[in-house]
């Protein structure tokens, strides 16, 4: 059987029937198109959020992977119990330096304490790191400058903390913290910059400082974690393999955790988005399914006599089924393809319009809507439409194929 025969057998009649009932087909197509455009735009928005959040999680928070003391828990991340001694982190750093896939590494030390001026004080959550790496990982500054490699005792504070303590760039503050022995230490530092963060709570507590400030304040040279950021994520596996081998050979009390293991918040957000997308997709495709199902029931009712004639002329039940099912699936696919084209046309317009959503609770900045459509989204739409078409036509088609020929021929 050649292509022409296949076309004649399986497509000619469904296509002609779709064209015969143009008005009904158009209404059905409109619902498929509207559904496809809606779901694709939403998928495209979620995709951007997912990529953005992942990039944010890797670049700003976790790196591609981190090296930690065995037993270190995120629940008590400022604890002195699970810190990496200088000797150990210098050893492993010498190996990391040999890996060409590494973009940068950051030695992180987390600490809590009090920050104060002569007039006011507040609790701080300190993030200490290498200035060369922190410049990539810390949030955007709204005033001042980031501390450099040869920085003195400087810190960066959030704009809410600056407002609360009435601080400006260049002001001097004192940091207080308990050292490993429980004694209080203090250090005087200057505010070199003020940043804008994602959450108000973070802006009012979190401060950034060079590693040497934390070490000076606490009187030790340990760190909590080594953050490794790669040039390309695909090199992660081989880099981890090399480092794990080194850790094992040197019997170091260290372990490696990837960004996806560490980024609990990211995982929860993505799971939530995927859940919302799934439910929305289910609702939209259910509406499309009922619409097509209704259309196909009407088709079967209108064409009962025709179906009887075709059966009398030698069409099998399967052939009647496949003809009607093709009709339903074609409606879905045609609607889906038009929907994809429309989405691809309006996507740049939506991005150009710079539409923003209101800020979520605890945030100040509106969220810009940016949409990306990739081949995965297109394929998901096509497959979802086909499956919807098959499900939607199943019951009407079953009914048509089981029609008694004599009864069908008696219909007017």
């Amino acid at each position, binding site marked *: *059987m050649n292509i*022409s*025969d296949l076309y*004649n*057998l399986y497509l*000619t*009649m469904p296509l*002609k*029937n779709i*064209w*015969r009932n143009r008005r009904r087909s158009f209404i059905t197509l409109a619902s498929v198109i509207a559904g496809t455009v809606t779901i694709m735009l939403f998928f495209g928005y979620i995709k951007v959020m997912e990529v953005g959040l992942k990039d944010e999680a890797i670049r700003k928070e976790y790196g591609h992977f981190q090296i930690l003391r065995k037993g270190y828990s995120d629940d008590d991340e400022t604890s002195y119990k699970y810190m990496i001694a200088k000797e150990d982190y210098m050893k492993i750093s010498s190996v990391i330096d040999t890996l060409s896939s590494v973009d940068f590494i950051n030695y992180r030390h987390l600490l809590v304490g009090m920050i104060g001026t002569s007039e006011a004080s507040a609790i701080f959550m300190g993030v200490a790191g290498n200035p060369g790496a922190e410049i990539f990982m810390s949030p955007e500054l709204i005033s001042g400058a980031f501390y450099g490699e040869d920085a003195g005792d400087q810190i960066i504070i959030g704009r809410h903390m600056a407002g609360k303590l009435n601080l400006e760039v260049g002001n001097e503050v004192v940091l207080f913290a308990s050292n490993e022995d429980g004694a209080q230490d203090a250090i005087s530092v200057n505010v070199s910059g003020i940043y804008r963060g994602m959450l108000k709570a973070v802006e009012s507590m979190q401060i950034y400082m060079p590693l040497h400030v934390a070490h000076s304040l606490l009187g030790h040279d340990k760190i909590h974690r080594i953050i490794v950021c790669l040039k390309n994520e695909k090199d992660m596996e081989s880099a981890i393999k090399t480092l794990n081998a080194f850790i094992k050979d040197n019997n170091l009390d260290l372990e490696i955790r990837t960004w996806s293991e560490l980024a609990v918040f990211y995982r929860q957000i993505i799971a939530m988005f995927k859940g919302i997308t799934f439910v929305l997709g289910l609702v939209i495709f259910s509406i499309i399914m009922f619409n097509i199902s209704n259309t196909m029931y009407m088709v079967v009712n209108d064409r009962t*006599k*025709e179906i009887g*004639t*075709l*059966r*009398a*002329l*030698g*069409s*099998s*039940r399967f*052939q009647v089924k496949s003809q009607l099912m093709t009709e339903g699936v074609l409606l879905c696919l045609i609607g889906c393809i038009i929907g994809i084209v429309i989405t691809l046309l309006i996507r740049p317009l939506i991005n150009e319009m710079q539409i923003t959503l209101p800020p979520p609770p605890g945030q100040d900045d509106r969220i810009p809507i940016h949409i990306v459509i990739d081949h995965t989204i297109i394929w998901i739409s096509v497959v979802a439409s086909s499956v919807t078409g098959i499900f939607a036509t199943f019951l009407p088609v079953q009914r048509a194929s089981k029609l*008694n*020929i*004599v009864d069908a*021929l008696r219909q007017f």
Partner: protein
Amino acid sequence: MSEFVISAKEISKSYRMGKVSVPAIRNVSITISQGEFVGLVGVSGSGKTTLLNLIGTLDKVDSGFLKIGDITVVRKCNDNELTFLRRNTFGFIFQNFNLVPILNVFENVSYPLWRSRIPEKTRRERVRTLLELVGLSGFEKRFPNELSGGQQQRVAVARAFVNNPKIVLADEPTANLDTQNGNAVIDLLRKVNELENATVLLSTHNTSLFSEEDRVITLTDGTISSDTSSRQHQRCL
């Protein structure tokens, strides 16, 4: 080649009307030989259409024995077997023409061949021959709604004969036509019957459509009241 015979022995069929079972055909026995032109007459409700439907395997007998050629049609025959039998053995002509409205004349006539997956070249030649025979050459691209009733029934005749059926069943093919068109369709059926050597079983109210040589079976209340030539039938009346 052995003769292709339709043989029915004491076949019965009833339909349920609510809780009541109404017999449509009762213990009918007939034998029809290959190439015969047989008239099936009787008043409305006498069982003509039911008998045609049973012979054409559009419906199943309740009891009795029906043999189409070498194939015995019993209740337990499955749908695929019956579909295969219909596709390869029968041609159907209906009172209301029953052309597929979305298909043009050529496609309507070629539909049974199309379903039998006959190669396109053979299909074209066969359809062209049949359309010429029924006088509709040049009408290939027209759609049913662009044809008169007589023309539509001629298309149906061409469709019924296109797959070289052994048996053509025509259920009141002239009922929706004027006398002139009705006679033309019957003449056409006779002509094709002679040319193709297919058995034609034709149900009608109009006994004047039959010639002296034709076999005419009269049905009364679901039973055969006479099975004779047309002249004998006229005499009986």
